[in-house]
């Protein structure tokens, strides 16, 4: 036996002092309470008889002293924390990895898979031997250690209670790497995985990790697999009619049995549409809601079994999306008069168009886009993006290279957002100029005679320049004309490009935020308020919960609040069929062994109980006047 607590020399010193004091207290008598009696002769008569048995009293007093010394010894030994030498050497170091992914929210077992996992881990904690140590960690998209490596059940049990399933996938590789790092250099390393088996590609997860020498075990959780899930949910506005939008929802039946479901679409909490769908075994069904109108800003999709029941995983039956707010783009047209341009700008009701003659430029006010029609005065502050038609010889962002005649678009960047949905092959121009782009500029469209549509940036301002007057071509008669104008405006306004209908849980989100701020306040779906950092105009947050979020950034003028949605749309997590066997390091993992509840080999516990028993006996005998 060895002492793992206070050193033996300290214990002996305490024993000497405390024991000496105890004996001294028995030798020294406390001054007794004086009590008057009416006639002491009667007491003397009584005490005369009692003196005959005083030797027995002295013996009992000695017994009391011995009991006190025994109690003191037991307490001192407890302070020393005695342990069996063998037990101390053989202590295991266990990392328990508990799956905290969305599938652990499944309610196929009572109360949930996470609840069962907590019960299982508690049994492990209660079965720890005296010299074992354990670390409990939750693995989801990240790994969160909930305790230190300790043998104290008082620390481990709250850690078990702190386990919570999130709306994320499991990064099993990261969890394994964390466990191996935690066990590095420790004796008898052991990893216990508690999961329903939705761990992704396990073989890929363990690749490159050295699991040799580590005792691995697996506790499967879960029983059922009845689930239908929303595995896709997105929304977009129509490019040419941003007052209207369309929604795509993908529903998947992960079950082997066909199932009838009821799919509800809600806009700002009000029901927009309810559809009943029949899903075959393992069927994925995409459903589009086209040409939806209304002022809805938040969109939710809910899935329920047609019979009114619920499947085993409610977490993936609810998806969220948010449409970007529509605001009117302020457009300044500097022209001497262009009917075709005015007509094109009338197509989008969300444009606020101001037309000025070149001589009146610049007018007061800020604009998102300025269109120079055949002129190129120096751009004023607050001009926004610059669109040039028929770039003049002087003042334009690009120089004219040479005059060209009878040409068209022979090549163009089909992936450029400026040319979306456009067919430029039939456009013919009478005359114009080939442009001479600078090194950083991008040629969006060109004829065989030279570049005729160039995009780039000058002094921090974006520009798009067309080398000919559209009125000298048949372009103004084609659909491509208004599309080009509106695509350029959309590209400058960035409304479309910054649009994110929802983030995926378990990823690091880069949420657009006003540049200049260093931190932002994030309000989660659970109404918790967090402070998140802002880097390069993006708030950074690792999100694990699905729902609507609000991001507030303090700027110089006033706080700017934006909203966004987050979703668990993971087919992998929706497939909740539990695995009963996990193969790691080339072998199937069995259940953990050596965790026997109720057996704690720490002797101090029993010594403490013995001390309490002795104390109780002394208390009883004192109050019964047996030992005094």
């Amino acid at each position, binding site marked *: 036996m060895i002492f793992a607590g206070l050193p033996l020399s300290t214990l002996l010193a305490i024993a000497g002092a405390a024991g000496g004091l105890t004996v001294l207290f028995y030798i020294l008598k406390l001054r*007794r309470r004086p*009590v008057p009696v009416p006639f002491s002769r009667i007491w003397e008569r*009584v005490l005369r008889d009692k003196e005959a048995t005083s030797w027995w009293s002295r013996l009992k007093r000695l017994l009391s002293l011995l009991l006190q010394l025994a109690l003191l010894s037991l307490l001192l030994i407890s302070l020393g924390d005695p342990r069996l030498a063998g037990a101390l050497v053989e202590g295991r170091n266990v990392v328990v990895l508990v799956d905290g992914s969305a599938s652990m929210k499944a309610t196929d077992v009572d109360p949930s898979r996470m609840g069962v996992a907590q019960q299982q881990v508690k049994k492990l904690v209660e079965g720890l031997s005296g010299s074992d140590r354990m670390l409990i960690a939750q693995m989801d998209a990240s790994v969160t250690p909930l305790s230190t490596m300790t043998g104290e059940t008082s620390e481990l049990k709250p850690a078990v209670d702190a386990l919570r399933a999130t709306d994320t996938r499991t990064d099993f590789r990261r969890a394994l790497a964390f466990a191996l790092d935690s066990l590095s250099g420790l004796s008898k390393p052991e990893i216990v995985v508690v999961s329903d088996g939705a761990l992704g590609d396990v073989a890929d997860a363990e690749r490159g990790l050295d699991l040799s020498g580590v005792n691995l075990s697996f506790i499967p959780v879960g029983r059922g697999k009845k689930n239908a899930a929303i595995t896709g949910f997105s929304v977009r506005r129509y490019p040419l009619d941003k007052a209207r939008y369309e929604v795509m929802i993908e529903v998947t039946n992960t079950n082997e049995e066909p199932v009838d479901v009821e799919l509800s679409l809600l806009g700002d909490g009000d029901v927009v549409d309810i559809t009943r769908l029949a899903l075959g075994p393992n069927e994925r069904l995409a459903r589009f809601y086209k040409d939806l109108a209304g002022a809805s800003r938040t969109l939710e999709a809910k899935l329920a079994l047609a019979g009114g029941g619920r499947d085993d995983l409610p977490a993936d039956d609810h998806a969220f999306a948010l449409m970007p707010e529509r605001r009117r783009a302020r457009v300044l047209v500097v022209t001497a008069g262009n009917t075709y341009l005015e007509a094109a700008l009338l197509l989008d009701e969300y444009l606020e168009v101001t037309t000025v003659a070149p001589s009146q430029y610049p007018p007061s006010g800020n604009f998102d886009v300025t269109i120079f029609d055949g002129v190129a005065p120096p751009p004023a502050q607050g001009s926004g993006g610059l669109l040039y038609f028929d770039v003049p010889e002087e003042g334009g962002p690009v120089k004219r290279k040479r005059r060209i005649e009878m040409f068209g678009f022979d090549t163009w960047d089909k992936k450029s957002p400026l040319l979306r949905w456009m067919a430029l092959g039939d456009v013919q121009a009478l005359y114009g100029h080939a442009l001479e782009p600078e090194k950083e500029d991008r040629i969006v469209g060109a004829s065989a005679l030279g570049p005729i549509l160039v995009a780039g940036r000058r002094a921090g301002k974006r520009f798009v320049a067309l080398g000919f007057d559209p009125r000298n071509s048949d372009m103004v008669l084609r659909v491509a004309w208004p599309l080009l104008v509106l695509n350029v405006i959309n590209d400058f306004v960035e409304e479309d490009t910054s649009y994110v209908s929802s983030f995926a849980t378990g990823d690091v989100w880069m949420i657009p935020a006003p540049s200049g701020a260093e931190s932002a306040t994030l309000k989660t779906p659970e109404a918790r308020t967090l402070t998140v950092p802002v880097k390069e105009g993006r708030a950074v947050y690792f999100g694990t919960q699905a729902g609507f979020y609000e991001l507030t950034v303090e700027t110089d003028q006033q706080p700017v609040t934006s909203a966004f949605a987050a979703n668990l749309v993971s087919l992998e997590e929706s497939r909740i069929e539990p695995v009963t066997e996990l193969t790691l390091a080339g072998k199937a993992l069995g259940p953990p062994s050596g965790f026997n509840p109720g057996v704690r080999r720490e002797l101090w516990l029993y010594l403490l109980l013995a001390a309490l028993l002795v104390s109780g006996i002394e208390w009883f005998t004192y109050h019964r006047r047996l030992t005094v």
Partner: protein
Amino acid sequence: MGVLDVFKKATAPVSRRFGLTRPERAELFDEDFQKKLETLAIVSRRVFAGRMRAERRTKKKGSGIEFADHRDYAPGDDFRYVDWNVYQRFGRLLVRLYEEEEDLSVYFIVDCSTSMGFGDGRKFDQARRLCAALAYVALANLDRVTIVSATDSIVARMPTTRGKGRIFKVFDFLRRAEPSGVTDLQDSLKTFVAQHKRRGLAVLISDLYDPAGFEQGINVLRYNKFEPYVLHIVDPQEAKPALRGDVRIYDCETGDEREVTVTPKLLERMERAWNEYLLDVERFCTSRQVPYFVADVDTPFDELVLSVFRRGGFLR
């Protein structure tokens, strides 16, 4: 005029009339107590009519009514007592002797030692109530009543008085008594007998907690031709003191100390020893034909007085 009549005329409370200031003393002989005294006096007359009157024959021959004996005439005798009939028949001058009648002297010796006031003083209060009640009955029977308070000496003495109208002197005397001092019955009663030549009934009202032994005190009365009557005041609580644990007991009179660890067993032995002490006192008194009566503090005093009457020996 009875004592009640006196109190009906009185307007001030008893305590004020006797100049007492301590409220606990003022309540000692309250109106209720005095009513009970009157009742006791009436009851005593009815129950013991004819033989309990104050008149009492003594062994002295004198000028009474009842003939006792003859003796030879001696010069100087009163001619009126010469029995001329005997002279006519036998020619001898004989003088008639009559049993002389005299009133009884009743002495109340109240123990005023500290032990009588032990605790809440219930023993001392009971002793004084009994003394007052018996004194009233005696006064009502035209006996000569004397009260002394004793510790190791005679602390105070109420002069001899008679007639029930003097009961207030008794109240006053008893109110003034305070329990203080060491009990020594032998010394105090020696003083008593020396001070009182006229023999009579000596009622000793005491807890008999005499370190030197109660026997000597009672014997002093017996040897000096007094007729002792022992009223033993006892408080049963003293047999079961509310003590536990390690204590240092000391005698409230002598201050003698003793360290004791009080256990339930010890308390049991204490109760037995106390009862044995009472038995010792009773045994002593009975063997010496001294009337003995135990007066429990928990028993109302009027019940005790009636018990004293029934027991006999107080008045003959």
